[in-house]
């Protein structure tokens, strides 16, 4: 299947989960990443059960914050 990850079209095996995609994409510190699937945010507890489908658009958003 072809999916769009962070704006780039990529080919992956059908049926992979969000959790698997995070591994395959070597996402740094995944526990601090918010995932959007077709512009909808996915709860971290659903990464393992959410399957990605052909044509889906995924973005990984790092938590961004700080303090003085």
């Amino acid at each position, binding site marked *: 299947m072809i999916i769009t990850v962070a*704006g780039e079209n990529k080919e992956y095996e059908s049926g992979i989960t969000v959790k698997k995609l995070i591994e395959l994409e070597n996402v740094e510190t995944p526990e601090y990443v918010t995932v959007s699937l077709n512009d909808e945010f996915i709860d971290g507890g659903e990464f393992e059960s959410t399957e990605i489908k052909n044509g889906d658009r995924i973005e990984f958003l790092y938590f961004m*914050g*700080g303090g*003085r």
Partner: protein
Amino acid sequence: MITIKRSDVDKMIAHAKGCLPEEACGLIGGTKDGADKHIEAVYLLENTDHSNEHFTLDPKEQLAAIKDMRSKGLVPLGNWHSHPESPSRPSEEDKRLSYDSTASYMILSLMDAQKPDLNSFHVENRRDVTKEELVVI
């Protein structure tokens, strides 16, 4: 090296001053040319902490900004925030929360209101800070 337009620096300064006493924050987008980054767009986002000591970006606003970058052929390059009362360098909390080692972390100090100080940093392992060569064009 990272380049930024004078007009974008002025835009950050004006926004940061308007947000005082709170910290201001946002994203930067642009292009990459090897190790060089060229900032083409500065995004002014809400500090959801509404604090003079902390900032957090809203993921929904982050996503909207990233989509806007992509529509313009740009890529996300990092973020920026202001330090209303402290120098332009990453605090311990800034380092601890720098989860993306590919990002540039820009800090605008308004400690001297007459002389705002903007610098850009690279942070590895949420600990090791390198100051990037920032060129205002």
